[in-house]
């Protein structure tokens, strides 16, 4: 769906004072985050820091308890998932829940139909359907063309991660939230995924949760560090590397394992 960006100078993503409470527990609290269009931002933080909770609030998987979220100048704080998707926001999931009974082709088709609409059609799908052509294009970008007609339950872990990214790329996203895209990949599979991430169009804004410090610092221009649900530090990879507090809670902690 075409989106009219009246605020061309607006930030891709602007988060002000966002918090998410589960019962008496604040998963994230008082988060401020500004991401410029086309920026590559990494979000770091130890387990339980609230990274995925923050993503869930940004995409609308769960609603924010406090704060506001703006996408290219439009407030989406109270908007449902599908409205945010139509504004160009996409995400991948850390734990890929894919449609095990569907083929890669049909999964990508649904990803396209989710954005473009028309999933209510009851007539059998034709091979010439434009959305199917788009699905095949996504498969090519994600590198899953050779398994296009396999059921997703038969895919390897690496192929599932690639498919995740293919789904998120449906219909030219503007802001891409990637939740640990390389998690659980074998050393052989990692370069393929890194190459895929590097090949993303430059105008796409990418926010990346990554456990692997090296990948995160290599692929990103700026880094935000979450700790105990709060924003601990923000800056360039160099600044973050030099930040003593970050070293203490995260980098130091990682070495302590």
């Amino acid at each position, binding site marked *: 769906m075409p989106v009219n960006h009246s605020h061309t100078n607006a930030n891709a993503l602007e988060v002000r004072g966002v918090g998410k409470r589960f019962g008496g527990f604040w998963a994230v609290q008082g988060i401020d985050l500004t991401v410029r269009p086309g920026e590559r931002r990494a979000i770091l933080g130890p387990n339980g820091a609230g990274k995925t909770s923050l993503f869930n609030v940004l995409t609308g998987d769960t609603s924010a308890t406090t704060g506001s979220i703006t996408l290219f100048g439009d407030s989406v704080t109270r908007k449902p998932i599908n409205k945010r998707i139509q504004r160009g926001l996409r995400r991948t999931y850390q734990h890929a829940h*894919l449609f095990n009974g*569907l083929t890669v082709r049909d999964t990508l088709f649904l990803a396209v139909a989710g954005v473009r609409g028309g999933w209510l059609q009851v007539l059998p799908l034709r091979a010439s359907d434009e959305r199917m052509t788009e699905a095949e294009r996504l498969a090519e970008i994600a590198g899953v063309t050779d398994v296009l007609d396999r059921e997703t339950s038969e895919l390897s872990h690496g192929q599932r991660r690639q498919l995740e990214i293919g789904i998120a790329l449906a219909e030219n996203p503007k802001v891409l939230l990637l939740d640990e895209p390389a998690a659980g990949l074998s050393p052989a599979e990692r370069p393929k995924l890194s190459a895929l991430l590097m090949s993303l169009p430059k105008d796409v804004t990418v926010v990346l949760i990554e456990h692997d410090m090296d990948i995160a610092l290599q692929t990103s221009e700026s880094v935000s560090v979450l700790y105990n649900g709060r924003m601990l530090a923000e800056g360039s990879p160099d600044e973050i590397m030099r930040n003593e507090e970050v070293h203490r809670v995260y980098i130091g902690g990682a070495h302590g394992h």
Partner: protein
Amino acid sequence: MKQALILIPLLALPLVLNDFWLTQVATRSLILGVMALSLSFLATYLGVVSFAQATMAGIAGYTIAYFGPNTVGVGTPLPFWVTIPMALIFATLSGALVGLIARRSRGIYAIMITLAIGVAFFYFTRQNYTLFNGWTGFSGVRAPEVAGVSLRNPLLLYLLSLSTAGIALALVSGFVRSPLGLTIQAVRDAPGRVLALGISVTTPIVAAFAFSGLLAGAGGILNVWYQERISSFSVGLGPIIDILIISVIGGLRHPGGAFVGAVVFVLLDTFAVDLIDRERFNTLIGVVLLLIVIVAPGGLQQLAQDWAARLRSPQAKPKQASEHS
């Protein structure tokens, strides 16, 4: 298209069967098969077992009885080209309503909620006289006549049931390849992920139930013409369980299984009296069901497919033989 080849022997069946076999076995199997198909569809593609399919079939049957010729003097007769679409629409709407009520339920909870709907409808038909004529229901329901010949004629009813079954199967296989059909299967596999794609979950669930209502309704119309009557017993626990048994015997993983299950069920039901005491039919069908669940959890359809696959691949045999030697 290979499946369509099975139509040829089925079309020739009336040439070799007498009226008893044609009506009591073949036609009845097809009618029960269409009703069970409505359940197999839901179980296979939405992953929900519904006990309300007899209710949806019953709503279509009652519509035909109420708005058609009957001998109890209840209802308003309308021409059959009005009542048939009306019955299908009511059955579809009832399916949608059941789906709307059960949309958040899965597994045992979906079973309980649909069972509650089915049983509630059963008691409602017993107590309501203006629409359902109480527990006696409607008798003397006549199938429409085309060119002076009643559709209840054994040959015509068989051909009508056969084409309905064929159309129902074709509809199912087409529907599951449609965008909505794919969405329904996606909801079965990961409803949360469907939401994350920006697609509603409620609509596909309600649509799947509505479609199953349409199928059940088609079976219900044929059934009321076949039985020539309908009453609360047609929507009670008996038929509810029969439909479930047929689907499980045939296999819930493939829509065609419903008809395999129906043939086995009808043969047992018809000839149990010759094998064992009439009263022991439930024991017999229970034992068969138990055997299926233990030996072939995928149902007879799956069992036949496995055997066919084994026969087709000759390598499998020597391999097995060498394993044994």
